[in-house]
């Protein structure tokens, strides 16, 4: 959580130039966030599309970090903070992957 309050570049920005980090983020996103939830290029009813440049809860990397780490109360989006294999690192790599895959923003 301390990272959220920090000023300066966030880790996701750096990972945008790191193929291994992007691959890791893509794999964790695919395995944990896609399928019947956010999908892999699939539109599922009631679930936001994460590749259309529209961010309901804020589109900065830190906003997205907060959404993933803390979840969205009242929705199916649970808090993933501290629950992914590599912790915060995986969240930042997911964010980098999402930003790298989004088109037309």
């Amino acid at each position, binding site marked *: 959580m301390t990272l959220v309050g920090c000023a300066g570049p966030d880790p996701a920005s750096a990972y945008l130039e790191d193929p291994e980090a992007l691959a890791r983020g893509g794999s964790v996103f695919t395995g944990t966030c896609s*399928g019947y939830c956010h999908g892999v290029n699939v539109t599922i009813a009631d679930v936001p599309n994460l590749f259309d440049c529209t961010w309901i809860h804020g589109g900065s990397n830190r906003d997205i970090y907060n959404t993933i780490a803390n979840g969205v109360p009242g929705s199916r989006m649970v808090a993933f903070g501290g629950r992914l294999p590599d912790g915060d690192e995986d969240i930042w790599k997911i964010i980098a992957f999402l930003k790298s895959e989004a088109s037309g923003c």
Partner: protein
Amino acid sequence: MAFRPSTYAFLSLFIVACADGGAPSPASEEEVEGEAGPSSGQMHWTNDRPIGLGMSGVDAAMLESGLEDPTRWLLYGGNYANYRHSPIQRLTPEAVPNLKLAWSFPTGTDRQFEVSPVVYDGIMYISSSYNRLFALDAATGELFWRYDHQQPDDLLVCCGPVNRGVAIAGDAVLMATLDARLIAFHRLSGEILWDTAIIDYREGYAATAAPLIVGDLAIIGIAGGEFGIRGFFDAYDVATGERVWRHYTVPAAGEPGVETWAGESYLTGGAPTWNAGAYDPETHTLFWTTGNPAPDWNGDEREGDNLYADAVIALDPDTGERKWFFQFTPHDVWDYDGNTQVFLIDMMRNGREVKALVQANRNGYFYILDRTDGRFISATAYVQTNWATIAEDGRPIVNPEALPSEDPSVRVCPSHLGGMNGAWTGAYNPGLGLAYIPAVESCELYRKGIVAFIPGQMFLGGGYELIDVEAERSFGVLAAIDVRTGETRWRYEDPIPLMAGTLSTEGGVVFTGTQSGFALAFNAETGEEVWRHRLGGGVRSQPIAYEADGRVFVAIGAGNGTFLESTGAPDILPEGGQLFVFELP
């Protein structure tokens, strides 16, 4: 008039006093008076006037007689062997084009309307998405009583808030709920007789199937294979709601079969049981089927066959003790739940009678087993299938290129929806020896990734890329399959995957519906389309036929659902469940 919303407060107190395992929260007066949405409050209208034809309660002999009496439709599968074959001879290819709409009824809920109605004593019972339950006059559609289940805000359902129907036993009508309860209602008054919690839904469990009544027991399975649950199915005393036995479908530590799960992967093994089974009175054997191991698309951490996922299990219904099992898809990594409908069919093969169990599996193969011992007899592809071939012992020989990967490029068939799927039913015409199987023809890319198990969160390990849907190459089929050979005799193709159930009639007709909103009927022998009627909403229900007041009716529900985009179905069609009941002039 029968509606008595003001009695609800009294009834709530009654429930609290007699419930087993807790009771729903009482509704406020405002909720009782208003037409609330599906999850905004429990409402209950009971009935205190004489209804029905004066019949006594449903007994074991009635259930064993299946559909012999055309005024009844008592079981989800029509009979214990799941034929869904009406004895009504007047429903012929020549007569069916004359069907006229007799009445219709709205559920007031959205998402899939997957019900197979139950009819007894001149009364029809239908359940809707979000667990509304209605008792209707089977001839006129007049509403006698109604129950709207109060759903919690934090339901965990993977694939839509569905319910496929109720069971009936004695004077009780039983409905399983999305928050994993089993509730019994008096069939005439609608009052709650008992209300039992199956398990804590917050762990990822939900109940969507129609219970199956065997003797004094109501048997009900559970969904949750996408949440890393430990699968099971239960038997409850119909009279009291007390649980008699539970059969786990994933072994515990130290139990046989746990060696088929690497490490501690059995703890989150899935193997749900979300469809109704079958029962053979002759051998007093219950057959129940199981779904996918978890996580769905990444098997790296659960090396092994993953027993008893994707299997059919034969049991003693009195004790829940297993007699035998057969696993269709060992170490499934495609989400090929093994829980499509099973037919119990006696057939002649190579000059001897075989007591067979037949299933169009979601993995694309049509299986014939010996139901006395689970011995594999044959498997024949009934849709495009390239994930595996089947060896002589019934074990798949997996195509290594079909395994999910992090960068998939091979088009794998069938899709994660099937083939056939446990969300809808087939039918069997014993005179023609043909099973009617609605199915999806679609292939896709299977992608896997790193997955973390978080209780209450989907535990999938990957996803799918709908390349056939995007290319408009996916479509629906209704296949008429010779059950002795597995060969397809005729086949109807629809532009959109078929996801509705079927009804067969002694008069030689097969009914189903399309996601584009039509009810369809075919000549059962030739496949010629004989009737097409626009219902408006996409059809996901299980049609039935029955007689009431001396007249012949066909009932079929329409209403859209989740995953429309996954199937290429038209999303322009509006939501809203509606039952349509047609009559022969």
